[in-house]
């Protein structure tokens, strides 16, 4: 059976850690990193990448446009 697999790539240096992506992710993929980036912001990262469906909700709602989304159909 085919399954949709997604992946996100976050430009962590441009992320401001606003967490809007986190509450917008339907599968709870994203969390905020304890470390900070060069600007001093905690940044978002895909903590549970296997759950990502590539729905792009996070990227669409990200005010700074730092998230790139990939999606692929994979056979199980």
């Amino acid at each position: 059976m085919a399954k949709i697999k997604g992946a996100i790539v976050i430009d962590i240096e441009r992320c401001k850690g606003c967490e809007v992506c986190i509450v917008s992710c339907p599968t709870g993929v994203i969390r905020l990193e304890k470390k900070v980036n060069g600007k001093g912001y905690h940044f978002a990262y895909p903590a549970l990448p296997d759950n990502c469906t590539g729905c792009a909700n996070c990227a669409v709602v990200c005010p700074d446009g730092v998230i790139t989304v990939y999606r692929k159909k994979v056979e199980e």
Partner: protein
Amino acid sequence: MLVSPENLVYTKTPLMTDKPLSYCPGCGHGTVHRMIMEVVDEMGIQADTIGIAPVGCSVLAYEFMNIDMQQAAHGRAPALATGIKRCWPDKYVFTYQGDGDLAAIGTAETIHACNRGENIAIFFVNNGIYGMTGGQMAPTTLPGMRSSTTPYGRDVALMGNPLKITELVAMLPGTFYVSRHSVHTPLNVRKFKRAARMAFENQKLNKGVSFIEIVSNCNSGWKMSPVDANKWMEDNMFPFYPLGDIKVNGEMVSKPTKAE
């Protein structure tokens, strides 16, 4: 390999520059900018689009949108847009303004550009506060809402009522499309983008102003986290500034709501 170009489904449009946005974390401006630029990109009209930046937080919008832009004096963006559109009727012209810019100091320009039916798009970001100057009361500040110049809350008896300028311009014959949106959830962002597309498509029809309000947060000015600010916006701003179409194709689709 999942992360490879053939599987790409979403990335920042090249019509946004690579300059980091000057906005606070979680501010809706960035999303509004990007959606407008996605529409310009998808319509293939970069070479025919001229934008007007306001005075306010988005004064530097031209640093982020990869199109020809002009920066207007405070409130005067609709006058600039009028001047441009009258000289270049085949170009796509839009203004990008905040609530202080559009609904206080620029009220006359807003009303008259809308009433003349200039064939332009107006994007109006309403966060109920003067963000850039440090969170003072705006024409759209809610009754009882705190700001740096209403530290005990907006007392309507003393400071007057908030202005629902979007409902006001909807009643003018020169507006063709008037709609209110938000960009705080993926669904709302997608709805706003469809509205923005209509605002640009409408310019082909030469039927008048497309006016889109985006109710947005100002988490710095409201002194909340971005996620809390979005929740506060849903609970407090949306009841006063309800989302949805007000006027479509020149016809009113919702009755103007009365100010509380």
